[in-house]
C-alpha cells in the first residue's frame, strides 16, 4: 500500500485449472492434424503416421504458457492497470518523436555502405537485396495503398492487381519494343492509374467490407486473365529475360562499356543491387513526399474528410465520385511504379507473384502500421517483411531441432499469427495517433479514440 499500488493476488488453483483446460483444448485442437500425418507411401497410397511426441510437447508448451500467463503476465497487467496513468509523457518520447524521422532517413541512405563496410562485397549482396530492396518495395506499396485505405478510407483488397499491371506493362513493352526503364516507369504508372480509375468507377457506391470483396474479385480476375491469356502473358510460365535498368544508359555488366569498366572498378554484381536499392528508395520517398504534399491540397483534405464522414462530405459539396477516383488512381499509380521496378529487378515475372496473399500482405502492413501513418506503415513493413525474411537466416535452429527442420516453412505461418496477435494487442495499429494537416495555433496529435475510419 506504500505508493498506492496494490499487490495483485494470484489464484493458484484457478491458474492450474485454466492451464489444464487450455492444454486439453490444445490436445483436441491439434490431435487430428498434428497427432496424425497423411503420407503417400511407395505404392502411392495415402497412409497415416503418428507423431505423438510432437503432439504432446506442443500440448505441454501450451499448458505451461497458459500457466506462465496467469502467474506472471496477468498480475503484471493488473498491476499496470492499478498504477496511476502519467499525465505528461516522459521527456524521451518528445526527443525520439522529433529525431526519429531524420535519423531513419539518414540510416536508410547510408545502409548499403554500412552493410558493405561490415560484411564485404560478397556478404552484403544478400542484405541489400533481400532486406533492403525487398522491404523498401513493401514500404512503397504500403505508402501507395495508404493513400487509398489510410487517407481516403476505401478498403482495397485487390491492390496487387495494379502492381501486376505495372509489372506486365514494363515487361511486355520493354521486351517487345525495347523501351528503356526510364520511359516505361511513368508509362506503367499511367497505365496502372488508368486501370485503377476503370475498376474504381463501378464500385464507388460500395462501402467498407463490400468494397473490399469486390476489389478482391477484380484482383483475382486480373490474375486469372494473366494465367490464361497465354498469347500475351505466357501464362504460368511467366515472362523471363526482362531487360534490366541501366545506369543512365550504362549497363551493369562485365563488358568494356559496362558500369564497372566505365568507372574503373572491378566487376561485381553488387553495383546493380546498390543502384536498385537507391532507385526504390527514391521511388518510396517520392511516394511519401507526394502523399505529404497532397494532404495539404484540397484533394487530400477531401480524402480525409471522406474517410471521416462521407455524408457530411457530400452535404458540404465535395464531389465524392471524383475524390474517390483520384484516390484510387493515385494509389494505383504508385503500385504501377513499384510493379515496373519489381519486373526490372527480378528480370522474371509470373502470375504467382500477384496472388491474393500479396494484397493481404500490403493491406495488413497498412492496417498494422496504423492507417494513415507513414512512419507506422514503414515500421510495419520492416517488422512483417523483415521478420519473414529473417526466417530464412535461422539455419542454426537446425542444430537444435535436427537437420530436417526448415525454418523457411514457418514464415507464412508466423506471418499470419503475427497479424492476429498485433491486431488483438493493438487494434488501431502500431502508430495510432493522427497527425492533423489543419490546426489552430498548435499542432496536437489526435488520439486514436477520437477517430473512426474504414467505413466509407
Amino acid at each position, binding site marked *: 500500500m506504500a505508493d498506492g499500488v496494490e499487490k495483485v493476488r494470484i489464484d493458484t488453483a484457478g491458474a492450474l485449472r485454466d492451464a489444464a483446460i487450455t492444454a486439453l*483444448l490444445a490436445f*483436441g*485442437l491439434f*490431435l*487430428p*492434424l*498434428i497427432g*496424425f*500425418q*497423411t*503420407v*503417400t507411401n511407395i505404392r502411392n*497410397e*495415402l497412409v*497415416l503416421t503418428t507423431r505423438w511426441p510432437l503432439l504432446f510437447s506442443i500440448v505441454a508448451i501450451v499448458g505451461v504458457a497458459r500457466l506462465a500467463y496467469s502467474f506472471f503476465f496477468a498480475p503484471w497487467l493488473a498491476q499496470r492497470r492499478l498504477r496511476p496513468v502519467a499525465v505528461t509523457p516522459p521527456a524521451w518520447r518528445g526527443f525520439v518523436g522529433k529525431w526519429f524521422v531524420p535519423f531513419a532517413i539518414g540510416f536508410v541512405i547510408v545502409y548499403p555502405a554500412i552493410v558493405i563496410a561490415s560484411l564485404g562485397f560478397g556478404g552484403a549482396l544478400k542484405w541489400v537485396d533481400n532486406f533492403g530492396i525487398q522491404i523498401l518495395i513493401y514500404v512503397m506499396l504500403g505508402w501507395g495503398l495508404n493513400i487509398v485505405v489510410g487517407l481516403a478510407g476505401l*478498403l482495397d483488397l485487390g491492390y496487387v492487381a495494379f502492381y501486376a499491371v505495372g509489372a506486365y506493362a514494363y515487361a511486355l513493352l520493354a521486351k517487345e519494343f525495347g523501351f528503356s526503364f526510364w520511359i516505361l516507369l511513368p508509362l506503367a504508372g499511367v497505365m496502372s492509374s488508368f486501370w485503377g480509375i476503370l475498376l474504381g468507377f*463501378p*464500385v464507388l*457506391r*460500395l462501402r*467498407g*467490407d*463490400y468494397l*473490399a*470483396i*469486390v476489389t*478482391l*474479385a*477484380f484482383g*483475382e*480476375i486480373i490474375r*486469372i486473365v494473366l*494465367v*490464361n491469356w497465354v498469347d500475351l502473358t505466357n501464362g504460368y510460365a511467366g515472362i523471363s529475360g526482362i531487360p534490366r535498368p541501366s545506369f543512365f544508359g550504362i549497363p551493369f555488366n562485365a563488358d568494356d562499356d559496362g558500369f564497372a569498366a566505365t568507372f574503373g572498378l572491378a566487376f561485381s554484381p553488387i553495383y546493380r543491387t546498390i543502384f536498385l536499392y537507391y532507385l526504390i528508395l527514391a521511388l518510396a520517398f517520392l511516394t511519401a513526399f507526394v502523399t505529404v504534399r497532397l494532404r495539404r491540397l484540397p484533394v487530400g483534405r477531401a480524402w480525409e474528410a471522406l474517410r471521416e464522414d462521407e*455524408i457530411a462530405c457530400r452535404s458540404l459539396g465535395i464531389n465524392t465520385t471524383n475524390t474517390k477516383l483520384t484516390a484510387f488512381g493515385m494509389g494505383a499509380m504508385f503500385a504501377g511504379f513499384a510493379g515496373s521496378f519489381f519486373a526490372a529487378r527480378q528480370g522474371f515475372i509470373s502470375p504467382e507473384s500477384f496472388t*491474393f*496473399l500479396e494484397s*493481404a500482405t500490403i*493491406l*495488413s502492413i497498412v*492496417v*498494422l502500421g496504423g*492507417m494513415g501513418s507513414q512512419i507506422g506503415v514503414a515500421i510495419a513493413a520492416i517488422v512483417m517483411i523483415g521478420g519473414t525474411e529473417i526466417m530464412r537466416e535461422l539455419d542454426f535452429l537446425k542444430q537444435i531441432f535436427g537437420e530436417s527442420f526448415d525454418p523457411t*516453412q*514457418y514464415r*507464412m*505461418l508466423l*506471418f*499470419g*499469427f*503475427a*497479424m*492476429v496477435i498485433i*491486431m*488483438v494487442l493493438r*487494434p*488501431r495499429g502500431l502508430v495510432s495517433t493522427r497527425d492533423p494537416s489543419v490546426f489552430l495555433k498548435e499542432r496536437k496529435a489526435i488520439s486514436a479514440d477520437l477517430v*473512426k*475510419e*474504414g467505413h466509407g
Partner: protein
Amino acid sequence: MEVFLQQLINGITLGSIYGLIAIGYTMVFGIIGMVNFAHGDVFMVAAFVALVAFLILTTWLGVSSIAVALFIVLIVAMLFTSLVNWIIERLAYRPLRGSFRLAPLISAIGMSIFLSNFVQVSQGPRNKAIPPMVQGEFVLFTQNDYAVTLSFKQLIIWGVTAVLLVCFWYLVAKTRLGRAQRACEQDQKMAALVGVNVDQTISMTFVIAAALAAVAGTMYLMYYGVVSFSDGFVPGVKAFTAAVLGGIGSLPGAVIGGLLIGLIETMWSAYFSIDYKDVAAFSVLAITLIFLPQGLFGRPDVEKV
C-alpha cells in the same frame, strides 16, 4: 439438352456445397457484421480432418461399411471443426469486438493465412488423394449416345444437405438458441438487456457455421477425392459470393445463392470456357454488389445519420 441436364445435376451438387459454406458467412455477418475471411480455410481444415478420420477408420480400424464410415467421419469432422472455430472466435475475434471495423477483418485474414499454412506445414504441401469412397451411379436416360447420370455421391450430397438444412432451419426458427441469435442480430444491447447471453450466442453461431462448413468439407472430400492446403480460398470466396448474391444476412438467400453460383459455374464451364470459370463467379459477385447490393433476399441497408 442432355448436356444441360447433366450440368444441372453437377451444378446443384456443387451449389449444395457452396450453400453450406455460405450459411456460415451469412450467419456470422448477420450477427457481428464481419466478413469471416477465415471461413473458407475452416472448410479446408474440415476436409483434412475428414481425410484423417476416414483413413483411421478404413486403414486402421478396418471399417468396411462405407455408410458407417461416412457417418462417423461426418460427426468427427463436425465436432472437431466446431472446436476449432470456437477457439478461433475466442482468440482472434472476441477481443476485437467493439473495436474499429477493419480490425476483425485483418485478424480474420491473418487467421486464414495461419490456417492454410498450418495445414501445409503439418500435413505437407502435396495434394492428398484417396480412392473413391462411393462408386456407382444411376443412368437417368441416354440420348445421342450421351448418358445423363446421377451418381450415388451426388445423391448423398443432395440428401445430406437437405437433411441438414431442415435441422438448421428448425434450430434457427424454433429453438431458444435460434431466437437468441435472431435477437442479437437485430440489437445486441437490447438482447443483452432482456437476458440473452450475447457472447455465448455469438460463440454458438461460430460453432454452427463451422459444423456446416465441416459437412461441406466432408462432402467435398467425398466428391472430389482430393484435397490440398490451398483448397480453402477459392471455395471460400465463391461461397461468400453466394451469400452476397442471396442477400447477406438471409439464410434461405445463402442456400439459393449457393445453388445459383454452382449452376453458373458449371454452365459456364460447359458452354464457354473452363479456364475462366472463376472469372464468371467473381464477375457475378461484382455485378451483384454494384447493381443489387442487398442481394436477392436481403433487406436494403438503410443509412441513418
